[in-house]
């Protein structure tokens, strides 16, 4: 069905449903409980009859006992908006396997679970594409990417799965990311809050704090998945190095040998720990995964244990 996920994994994922801690606030009908009153089988409350109410909802049994007219109210079932923030910056193109491929697979899995649950899925890839130039080949590539990105906005229904996967496959990663701005803008753009999943390496010199805070403030139930390459966790190059940042072009000189590996790993651990503590303090579910991690391990164990879905 898709190169991103195996049929076996898809079959396993069909059993899951995204678990939303809050009630859905979407205006569109769906299968999620919401605070809105409407038509469903779930009784919610009574209220006094007012002129013009539909007689079909009058509780006649109550009228018989009290001789007063009350209207029965039912919960409205609405859809759950799921927004997947996918880091498509240059830094995601590193690693073996490539971090961006891994991120797309996770995005595909989450999107598939949401689509199967009749939820609305949006994949927001950042950074934005560069402005169009005169070059035809570039024009074609950018327009195809633009089309793919557009096709990933507000996807609903299981029937859209194929197109969803295809559009996801066409995404490419380049440019320098601004995680905070992308998340803030995503939070503002959303008409209703829902589930937000952030897939990134979080290696942004500007940080990640304001972006994640904006999502939480907007009412999103946020899940953050940090994806790092094996080489970032455990560097294999030693000696006197001049490191060039792929996104910013910044230069960092370092002398690195096996004997300093431990302190580097400690630095990575410290970085991840700060991110984890930040997330825990704001009710954000946080996961760290190496791009060589087995996908089903992350999806079927870690996310399930963290009750992202169940």
């Amino acid at each position, binding site marked *: 069905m898709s190169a991103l996920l195996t049929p076996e994994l898809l079959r396993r994922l069909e059993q899951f449903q995204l678990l939303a801690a809050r009630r859905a606030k979407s205006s569109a009908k769906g299968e999620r409980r919401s605070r809105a009153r409407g038509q469903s089988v779930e009784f919610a409350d009574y209220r006094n009859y007012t002129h013009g109410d539909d007689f079909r909802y009058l509780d006649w049994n109550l009228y018989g006992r009290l001789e007063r007219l009350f209207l029965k109210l039912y919960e409205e079932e609405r859809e759950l908006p799921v927004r997947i923030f996918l880091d498509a910056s*240059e*830094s*995601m*193109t*590193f*690693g073996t396997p490539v*971090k961006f491929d891994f991120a797309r697979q996770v995005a595909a899995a989450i999107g598939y679970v949401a689509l199967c649950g009749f939820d609305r899925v949006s994949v927001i890839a950042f950074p934005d594409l560069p402005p169009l130039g005169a070059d035809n080949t570039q024009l074609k590539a950018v327009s195809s990417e633009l089309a793919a990105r557009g096709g990933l906005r507000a996807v609903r229904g299981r029937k859209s799965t194929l197109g969803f996967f295809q559009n996801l496959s066409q995404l490419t990663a380049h440019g320098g990311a601004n995680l905070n701005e992308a998340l803030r803008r995503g939070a503002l753009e959303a008409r209703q809050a829902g589930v937000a999943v952030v897939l990134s*390496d979080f*290696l*942004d*010199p500007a940080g990640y704090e304001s972006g994640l805070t904006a999502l939480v403030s907007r009412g999103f139930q946020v899940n953050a998945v940090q994806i790092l*390459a094996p080489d*970032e966790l455990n560097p294999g*190059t*030693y*000696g*006197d*190095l*001049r*490191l*060039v*940042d*792929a*996104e*910013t072009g*910044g*230069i*960092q*000189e*370092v*002398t690195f*040998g*096996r*004997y*300093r590996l431990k*302190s*580097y790993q*400690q*630095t*990575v651990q*410290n*970085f991840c720990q700060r991110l984890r503590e930040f997330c825990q303090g704001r009710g954000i579910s946080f996961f760290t995964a190496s791009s060589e991690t087995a996908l089903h391990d992350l999806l079927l164990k870690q996310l399930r244990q963290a009750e992202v879905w169940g």
Partner: protein
Amino acid sequence: MSFLAPAAFAFAAAIPVVVVFYLLKRKRVVKLVSSTLLWQKFLAETQASAPFQRLRHNWLLILQLLMLALVIFALARPYFVGQSKSSRLRVVILDASASMQSTDEKPSRFEKARGEALQWVSGLRDADQMVVLQAAANTEVKQSATSDKTALRRALQNCAATDSPTHLVEAFKLAETLVKDRSDAEIHLFSDGALPNLGEFENKNLPLVYHRVGQGCENAGIVSLDVRANPENLDQRAVFVNVGNFSTNARRTDIELFFDNQLLETRPLELAPTNSQPLVFIAPQTTNGVFTVRLAAPDDLAADNQASIVSLMPQPMKVLLVSRTNQVLEKVLRSQPNVELSVVSLLSEPAVGFDAVVLDDVIPAVWPAVNTLAIHTANTNWFPGWETIQTPTIVDWKSTHPLLRFVNFDNVYVGESIGVKTPAWGVALLDSPQTPLIIAGQRERQRLVWIGFDTLNSSWPLRISFPIFMVNAMEWLNPASANASQLMVRAGDPFRYGLPAQPLAAAQVTRPDGTKKSLVIEPGARELIFGETFQQGIYRLKAGTNEVTFCVNLTDAAESNIMPHDELPFGKYGKVAATTLKRANLELWRWIAMAGLAVLLFEWWYYHKRTA
């Protein structure tokens, strides 16, 4: 612990250089990474981004500093002061006698002694001085007092063992003058202790340190050698050899006799422990040549395993007897087979053409210039004055002199004698309380035997000792035998050769090893003296048309006894024990340098382990 070169601590200035290596930044390899964020955080946690970085704990730095400290420490040349007091002047006497060639120490005692002396040179402080003396038959100053270790080492390397006996008195006298009035001086003798008694220095209290070399004594050697005509057959020679065994074990060996390198005879020989054994070989001889005796079995000392002697064909001796009526003397002289006797009653002209003159109670008009036996006559050139002594009593005679061999003066009575004092040119062979009765010696180049009494006025001609003495006297006065005895010298002693009348400018000596030495003869010189007889063997001298062969032998029982002695005798009571010290200053820099090398290797290994 002290330091020989404390100035080397100035090299400590190199330590900051090593630190600077770690402060400077290095050329780097460019690498594209996804983000430098993690590296920035990593560096922020480990280092600052200034041109100089904080000195961090780094094993490589510590190892390099340690190695540098070791090198500086080694350059400062620390040492531990040994048990002997340190001296400012050391006089090293290196025994170069034949016994030092013994191979009981490998490669030889001499090489071991030289090695120890070289170690002492290494242990010298900068201000210390050392003198190197080589003592064999003669003492040679190889290096005067200096602090230059290179010169001292070179001087020691130039020393070489000889085949000569030990004459250390000369070396000690020289050393004594060097250390006189110096309280900080020491004399270091490197020897095996095979020395004669040094009683002369008993009360001198020499600051002597005796370094003994040598371990054992497995040696047999030829200690004496002589050749004579066989009295029973004049065509044959009797070669007399005395072989000594100085080891405490019995030794078996073959002894070989050569004549001009032709093997004549081989005899098996069994030598009892610490005993000597005389042997006589009878060998025919038709021409002048060299007899060589050789011990076949190898032992610790090779120099005494071979000895050579020149044997000349006997020539008739022409003797002129100046006598009035001494029939006894004439008969005795005529009975000698080798003597051609002429008899005259007066001598009025120089006795040219005779080998010897016998003056029997006559005063010649012209005193002979050849070798002379003078009986009851005197010459003012020989004695400053004389008197007449009546009936002198014989009290003593020198039986070890060749003239008195087998001669006994028991029951000899003398009626009257000329009384003289023993002159400087001779030794008294027969003594009475008032005057010497027989004197023998060499005056200029003339051999003289003087008998102070008239033999006819004594009972001597009636004794068997009289003809024996006359035979001995003719033998001793024979210029040929005198020359023959000069053709064998002991190693280290000079060889003397009487030059012929015609003037010669140069001569050449061929040593046993084939090397040649040219000698310049001063005009008017009557004698040629060759002193470089340090090597045992057969030498050949060529002076003009004359060719002379002479032999140099060790033949010294004291030298052949190579048993090393723990103590040196100084007179009756004085002695110096062998020191057990090896070196006074034990320098440590070699060990520290080796530790530095080990640290360097460890650092190399550690660096490659880190960056591999």
